């Protein structure tokens, strides 16, 4: 099994410093919708100037380089244990090179490890064996501001008059966006999971964020709901940074997983405008990034 530490380091650098093209395109479209001279327009202009600068200078888009969340699919015969070691080595090196901020803090004594290596959950790595010979590593860097405004609802909810149906999901999602105001660095993106238990629902809501901004949900019921939530969230008028304005949510991705008869969770993972996610593919000797 080859050593991919350098290639993984490049994945981390790319993710932290170079915003994906589909995200940038969506931000540019948002800028077009805001009135020139408003705080919302100025905020988006600043955001886009920063995006260009970090791509050029190879510096972090945001100083909160977040929780590194890896989703790995490895071919039969590869060792997840060795891949974990290589990912950890790449993360520590990326921290030394200031692509990442040291972010792993001991919850009991407050000590920062200084290299982004904590316990077995930090960095977060999800492994799954692939059914072909291609290794893929997807990485999301999710900052604390947007993670803090994520929310999980157990339906039915009397407060929201939300039942166990797609209308209930809509009500919960809009409530989460309103609660977040500008604190999650709007305009944001929503990863929503319906079902699961509390833990799997949060993981699935983050996995939904691996999708491209402009893709189409294969389930027409969810595709319609995604469109509606995005459109209605923008009617709230929270706007970029919570300054007021037309762009509050730039995309919604929904996934549904099986649940217990007794449970109906709706989990909303809020991703800030600095929607840092990249994918590395290793096929034979070829390593590519998207």
């Amino acid at each position: 099994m080859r050593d991919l530490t350098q290639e993984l380091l490049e994945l981390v650098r790319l993710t932290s410093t170079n915003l994906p093209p589909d995200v940038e395109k969506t931000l540019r479209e948002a800028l077009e919708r805001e009135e020139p001279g408003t705080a919302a327009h100025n905020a988006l202009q600043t955001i886009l100037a920063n995006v260009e600068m970090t791509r050029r200078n190879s510096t972090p888009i945001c100083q909160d380089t977040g929780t590194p969340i890896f989703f790995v699919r490895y071919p039969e015969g590869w060792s997840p244990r060795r891949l974990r070691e290589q990912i950890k080595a790449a993360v520590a090196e990326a921290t030394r090179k200031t692509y990442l901020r040291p972010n792993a803090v001991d919850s009991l004594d407050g000590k920062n490890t200084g290299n982004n290596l904590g316990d077995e959950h930090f960095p977060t790595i999800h492994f799954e064996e692939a059914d072909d010979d291609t290794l893929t590593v997807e990485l999301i860097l999710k900052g604390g501001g947007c993670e803090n405004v994520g929310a999980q609802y157990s339906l039915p909810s009397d407060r929201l008059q939300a039942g166990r149906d797609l209308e209930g999901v809509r009500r919960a999602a809009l409530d989460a966006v309103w609660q977040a105001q500008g604190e999650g660095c709007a305009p944001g993106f929503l990863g929503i999971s319906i079902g699961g238990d509390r833990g799997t629902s949060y993981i699935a809501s983050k996995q939904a964020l691996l999708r491209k901004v402009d893709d189409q949900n294969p389930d027409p019921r969810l595709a319609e709901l995604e469109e509606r939530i995005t459109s209605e969230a923008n009617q709230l008028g929270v706007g970029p940074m919570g300054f007021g304005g037309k762009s509050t949510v730039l995309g919604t991705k929904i996934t549904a997983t099986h649940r217990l008869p007794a449970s109906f969770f709706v989990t909303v993972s809020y991703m800030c405008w600095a929607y840092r996610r990249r994918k590395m593919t290793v096929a034979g000797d070829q390593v590519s990034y998207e």
Partner: protein
Amino acid sequence: MAIKLSIPASDEAIRALHVGDSVLLSGVMITGRDAVHKWLADTFIKKTRPPQGDDLAVYQAIRPILDGGMIYHCGPVVGGLDTKQYRFVAAGPTTSIREEPYQGDVMRHFNLKGVIGKGGMGAKTLQACQDVPGVYLHAIGGAASLIAESVKQVLTVYKLDFGVPEAIWVIEVVDFPAVVTMDSHGASLHVDVREKSKEALDRLLG
């Protein structure tokens, strides 16, 4: 047109600012976020924990910087950690509301005139802005490398044992860009947006 504001700021300069004004800040300020606010409140304001180690020395060192000065809610990415030739690589604001339990008291204790962060703060801080007087200045969240360009020098660092993001970095800034979203006259953009968006939410939820 952005208003140039130098640090330390006078009461008159602060009272002249209103919600919506764009400002460019120049002068010396410190970073301070969750650990720093809790430490200041517990050790020097509520005094629920006695000073330890270099606590008193750090307090004496930052007091003149905070008098008429500004605090920046920021956990930067810092280069030069091995050589101690520190430079800010990325330095956008962090979410300010977490400091709401402490901020007003810290403003009054130090005569702190400006709080810089993102997302806005609550009623206690808004009251302190009226009393001190002070302002809340909103920087653009995530615009970290752009903002780092306005940090011309890292003068020193205190409490590095809190970790790089939580330490007290003393920085000199030139034309640091921000927008006034809470002023000394009791106005808050965040209250306005929250109220208006609540009306919209109620309509959408019927």
